[in-house]
Structures are given as C-alpha cells and as structure tokens.
C-alpha cells in the first residue's frame, strides 16, 4: 500500500514537474526562439540575470513575473464567474489528460511492480477524448462571457471547430483500436515492441489524419481560426489579461505536449527504441543488478519517450510557423468532407486487412 502511494506520488510529481515546470515555460521560449531562428531573426534574448541571458531562457521567468503583476481585467458587462472560470476549464483538461499516457514499461523494482503511467485506465483513450472535449468549454465560455463581439465570434468558431474535429478525431483512431484491439494505452504501447508493428506502419493514413485533427482540436495554426488575430483580433481571449491569459496559453502548450504524447504512444512505438525490447534492455543492463537494471531501463524508456515527444513538439511548432491559416468554412469543410470520409475509408481498409 505504502509502496503504491510512493509510486503514484512519484509519478504524479514527475509528470507535473515535466509539464508545468519544464514544458510550459520552456515551450514559450522554444516557440519564440525556434520561430526566430527559422525566420532569420535572433529572438527574445534581453532578459538577463547579472548579465547572463542563457539564450533567452530567462524570458520565461520574466514573463511569469510580468503576468503575475499585471492587472486582471474584466470588461464591463462581462459575466464575472464564467469569465474567471473559462481559463481554468481550458487548462485543467490539458494537465489531466497526460495521466493516462504511459511513458515507460512495466518493471519490478525492489519486489514492487512499477508501471510507468500515472493511471493505467482501461478506457485510456476514451478518457483523453472525454477531457479534451471538456476543454471546448474554456474557449466557448471565454468567448461568450467577455461581452465582446469579436470574442463571441471566436467562441462560436471555437465551439463549432472543436466539436467537429472531436468527431473526426474519434474516427481517425478507430483504425488504431482495430489493429491493437485495446483502448488501454499501456497495452497499445506494449504491442509496439516490434518495430514493424509501430502505428505509423500499420496506420499511416490514420497518423496523418489524427495529427491534423489533434492540431485542429488544439486550435493552433493553421487551424487557429478561433483566435485568428488578423480577422477577429484575438478571438475568444481578446478580453483576457494577466494570469488568465497565460492560462489559456499554458493550456495550449500543454496540449501540444499531450498531443505529442498521444501520437508517440499510438503511432511511434511509445517508449520503445526501434528493434529493442524492454527485455533486451534489462539483459543489457544486467551488470547493475536486477534493481539497477530496472532503473536504467526505465530511464532509457523515459528518455526515449520524451525525445519522441520533443520531436513532435518541434514538428508542430514548425507547422505553426510555416503555414497560413484556413478560413472558418474551409476548416469545417476539411473536417466533414475530407478527414471524415478518409477516416471512414481508413477504417474500412483496416477492417479488410486486419479482421479478414
């Protein structure tokens, strides 16, 4: 019991630390810096502590101080309760969803079974969908409660877009479910031990469609119509400032991480290195004793997983800074007329091939 508690707390702390402490601030920096280098600029590098700028990393700290001291503005005529609640509603699902994503295999440590996932839910995938569908309310309520026409348009766009893409996203991964026959993300991960059974080889079309839907669900370019700054100012968070604004942003960044985690788990072999099974890792680290081998193998798993995650984060950032934005009706058309039929075709083909 105690060991279970310690294990759970350790895992929760690790994932929280990784998300809130590492990814959220660092991604803000990455987004600036990567886009800058990509566009022949230098990027933010002015914030310094005793003259050290650490290539602009202190900007995350400076930003944190700035937003904490900023005025928390609520426009007149706004619904105060929902205006305050909206950022939380959009942030919480982004944090919670990571708890079903496995970041390593199952090992025995000091006679205790350690499973490197916070909560090994039977309906892991559905859990992710459930919470990502709740994130819609953040955008919708934020847009509605601001008492601003641009925000309202942004909120309407957000609700329609996120709802549609949720449906499409659900269909895109049905192929994966058919291949692996489980909703449990750990099981899906275990089954990808064989390099040739990685999701990307089994479901190439499913991967592309899922990534598209996931980016659209996260409302990032090229699907950022709910916040299209050149059309509707900033969409649903036009009237937000200070910490609440940052919560929307953090929600967005954490969702990038979550999307990358899901993509890694479903399509890119989860925590596995190509051609190397967990058993091989254990036997390779045999020299460190059985516990030491477990720890080392765990570390390799975690490192592999997060390197893959970082790769997908980088990819999403590149997409965001490369492409122009869709128009609202085109976003919907893409969803209902392209992704939905394609995912149905994908399901059909998968059925033909795998179920026979």
């Amino acid at each position: 019991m105690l060991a279970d508690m310690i294990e759970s707390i350790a895992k929760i702390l690790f994932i929280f630390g990784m998300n809130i402490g590492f990814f959220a601030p660092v991604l803000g920096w990455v987004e600036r810096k990567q886009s800058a280098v990509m566009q022949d600029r230098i990027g933010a590098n002015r914030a310094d502590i005793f003259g050290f700028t650490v290539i602009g990393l202190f900007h995350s700290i400076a930003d944190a101080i700035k937003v904490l001291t900023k005025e928390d503005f609520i426009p007149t005529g706004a619904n105060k309760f929902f205006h305050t609640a909206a950022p939380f509603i959009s942030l919480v699902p982004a944090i919670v969803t990571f708890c079903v994503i496995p970041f390593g295999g199952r090992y025995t440590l000091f006679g205790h079974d350690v499973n490197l996932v916070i909560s090994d839910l039977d309906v892991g995938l559905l859990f992710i969908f459930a919470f990502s569908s709740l994130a819609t309310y953040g955008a919708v309520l934020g847009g509605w409660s601001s008492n601003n026409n641009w925000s309202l348009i942004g909120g309407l766009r957000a609700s329609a877009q996120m709802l549609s893409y949720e449906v499409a996203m659900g269909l895109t991964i049905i192929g994966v479910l058919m291949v692996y026959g489980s909703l449990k993300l750990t099981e899906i991960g275990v089954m990808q031990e064989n390099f040739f059974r990685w999701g990307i080889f089994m479901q190439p079309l499913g991967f592309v469609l899922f990534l598209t839907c996931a980016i659209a669900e996260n409302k990032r370019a090229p699907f950022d119509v709910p916040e299209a700054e050149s059309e509707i100012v900033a969409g649903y968070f036009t009237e937000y400032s200070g910490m609440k604004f940052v919560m929307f942003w953090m929600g967005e960044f954490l969702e990038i991480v979550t999307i990358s985690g899901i993509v890694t788990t479903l399509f890119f072999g989860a925590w596995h290195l190509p051609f190397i099974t967990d058993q091989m890792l254990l036997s390779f680290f045999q020299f460190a004793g059985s516990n030491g081998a477990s720890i080392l193998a765990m570390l390799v798993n975690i490192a592999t997983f997060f390197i893959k995650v970082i790769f997908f984060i980088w990819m999403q950032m590149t997409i965001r800074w490369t492409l122009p934005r869709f128009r609202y009706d085109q976003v919907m058309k893409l969803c209902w007329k392209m992704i939905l039929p394609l995912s149905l075709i994908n399901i059909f083909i998968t059925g033909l091939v795998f179920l026979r």
Partner: protein
Amino acid sequence: MQLLIFYILAFGAVISALLMVTSKKPVSSAMSLIATMVFLAGLYVLLDAHLIAALQLIVYAGAIMVLFLFVIMLLNVDEKEGRMAGNTILLQFGAILAIGLVFIMMVSLVKSGGTLLVFGEGADQFGTTKAVGKLLFTEYLLPFEIASVLLLAAIVGAVILAKRRIDDPDQKERIIPGHKG
C-alpha cells in the same frame, strides 16, 4: 474513502442539478447541467463503469452540451424569454410529477432493503469495454440496432431541415459570384 467520494459527488450532482433548474440565465443553466453530467460520470467511475463514465463525458458533456451552448450563444436568448414562470398550471403539473418521482424512488429504495450502494465484488469484468461491447453485440443487439436506425432517421431529418433551398431567392442573393461564377 469511496463512500466519502460518493457523497461529495452525489452532493455536487444534486446541487448543480438544482442550480440548473433555478438559475435565471440560460448559460448558467447549461453549465450547471454540464457539471451534473461530470459528477454523474464520477459516480459511474465509482461503480467501476469506466466506459460509461468516459462516454458520458464525451457524448453528453462534451458534444451535446456544446451544441446547447452554441445555440444559446447564437440566439442570444433573453433571460426572461421562454421561461414558464407565469404558467402556473404547468408549474403545478411539474411539481406533482417531481414529487411523484421522488415518492416512487423512496418506495423502491425501502423495498430493496435500504442499501444505497453495493460495491462490486466478483465483478472484475463489469463495465469494461470488452464486457459492454460483448453485451451490446450479443444480448442487446436488437435494441442497439433499433437505436442506431432511430439516430440515422434523426440525422436525415436534421439534414433535410437544415438544407438550404437553392431555388429560394433570398438565399441566392447572398452569394455574389465573381464574373466567372
């Protein structure tokens, strides 16, 4: 521990359901309903019905209620509009119905021996995706298919209702074609 969580969830569900009925603003009502759904999902989790909980969140809280909110926001429903506050006959009818429902529930509870919750023992498979799926496609296949046909009919109906009539002159005016059409 489980009982405590149950009470918290149940209390939340009741309170938010009451808020839904009593609140004056349509959006608040809708949000309270969503909260109710979330609490109910929590209750399902307590009952080991993870699948149902997830589906509750996805379908009801995530999808249907977003549409409700969407419509409320679009139509910008006035606070007083559509309220039945003045209609005493309907109000009385509703009150009688509610009281009757509560009465029936009490009776059935008393008859069942007064136990509120039975935590599953020997029901490992209960509520898992596999079990539900198996039940759905064997024992309850006919109701399942009937339900899907019903939904299909509803979809077709919705499409027909919402379809833009091409010959409608009002609608045609809205699109000004370029000289190439």
